[in-house]
């Protein structure tokens, strides 16, 4: 479904991704963990070309994504949920959800709104359809952002630290929605520090360190018996 081949990324002199090779199968729930600055976010941002790799290849369904075709490839295949939600503040919740379906996916207003209400039900926020995002709590905004991603009905959703900007009390409501989604046949790539979530939903966990994937395996493997000393240190600090 997603395939990164020898992906390198430089920001100036900084080598943030070093020959990353990673494959994500259809319907797989992949969790990427690692310390900050390890290249986790850059890795997922290369998957939808928010960052263009300095070298290497990214394939979606066997087709290489390039600067030229990225808009259409992303539109048809990939949605994203951001750390800072990035809802459109000048639009109501409903309009946030219907904008792309109407303007990009050629849905009628009625179809788009039905779709929007359906996914508002999924995230449990139907009653917020007509308010502006700024009136919602962080957790609610992130649930709306997830609903917006779902409205595109793509097979892949990328989550870039979806709970890192949230108050501790609201983290769980967002995780609950993601756990619910994980039961569907959606391919999910999630950058997160939430180990409970990883243990519960991940098919596979990869650990990144200084721009490289240094260990990967099932959640059990990670939590029971990680091989790499760096991984052990990290998990020791993060699991309470």
């Amino acid at each position: 479904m997603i395939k990164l081949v020898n992906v390198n990324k430089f920001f100036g002199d900084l080598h943030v991704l070093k020959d990353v090779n990673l494959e994500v199968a259809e319907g797989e729930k992949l969790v990427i963990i690692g310390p900050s600055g390890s290249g986790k976010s850059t890795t997922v941002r290369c998957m939808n070309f928010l960052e263009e790799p300095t070298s290497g290849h990214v394939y979606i369904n066997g087709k290489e994504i390039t600067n030229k075709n990225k808009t259409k490839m992303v539109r048809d295949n990939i949605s994203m949920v951001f750390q800072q939600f990035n809802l459109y503040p000048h639009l109501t919740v409903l309009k946030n959800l219907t904008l792309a379906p109407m303007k990009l996916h050629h849905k009628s207003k009625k179809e788009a709104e039905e779709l929007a209400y359906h996914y508002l039900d999924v995230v449990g926020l139907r009653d917020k359809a007509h308010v502006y995002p700024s009136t919602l709590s962080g957790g609610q905004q992130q649930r709306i952002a997830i609903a917006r991603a779902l409205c595109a009905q793509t097979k892949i959703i990328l989550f870039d630290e979806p709970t890192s900007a949230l108050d501790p009390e609201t983290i769980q409501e967002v995780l609950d929605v993601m756990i619910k989604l994980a039961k569907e046949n959606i391919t999910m790539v999630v950058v997160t520090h939430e180990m409970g979530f990883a243990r519960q939903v991940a098919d596979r966990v990869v650990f990144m360190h200084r721009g490289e994937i240094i260990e990967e395996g099932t959640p059990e493997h990670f939590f029971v018996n990680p091989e790499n000393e760096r991984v052990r240190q990290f998990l020791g600090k993060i699991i309470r």
Partner: protein
Amino acid sequence: MSGLLSADAWAKVWTYRSTFLLGLLNTVETALFALILAFALGILFGLMATCGSKILRGIARVYVELIQNTPLLLQLCFLYYALAFAGKSLGILVTGIIALGVYTGAYMSEVIRAGIQSIPKGQFEAAHSQGFHYGGMMYHIILPQSIKIILPPMVNQVVNLIKNTSCLYIVGGADLISLTYSFVTGANTGGAYAPAYLVSGLLFFIICFPLSNLASKWENSLKMREKERAVAAAAAAEG
């Protein structure tokens, strides 16, 4: 003779009132067409200044810096006399429209650039992540958010444009200032300096004051709305 209290002088201005109205009309006409040109250039170069292409950004930069760092009078003279001596005179009206349009356009493009750059990067990323092309992103997501930042300084530029029509005097224009000057120095009409310039100034004021007022009103109401939103957001966070 030219005194403020001379009934004679005021009577002269009144007799020749059509001169002032004609000047006003010419000023408004020039400003209007120049405004259209300035808007077009401002939008074009403002978008170029924020786009991904280094070359386009460079071109926009050169335009803005060249225009903003040379006097409008010089640009006007250059356009008028350089072309006139090359035998391709555009006429004063067209020269005025182009010079004022190009000049104001540079300032408008800076206003638009600043407006676009004030939008958080996450908004652009969200649009890209949904598969919006540049045009759709700008139209549906970025510009609707930046318009409220753009509008007040934009109106100020319109006011400047109207006042700057006075520079047409240097190439012998028919704008309000030029006609006022002809009036006070004319063989038959000369002398009524104080009343003439007062009337001329009043006409400018009548046009420009409501516009400036509109700009500051806009700004204030935007600040108010922002405050209300912040309060609402804070209340939501509490609840």
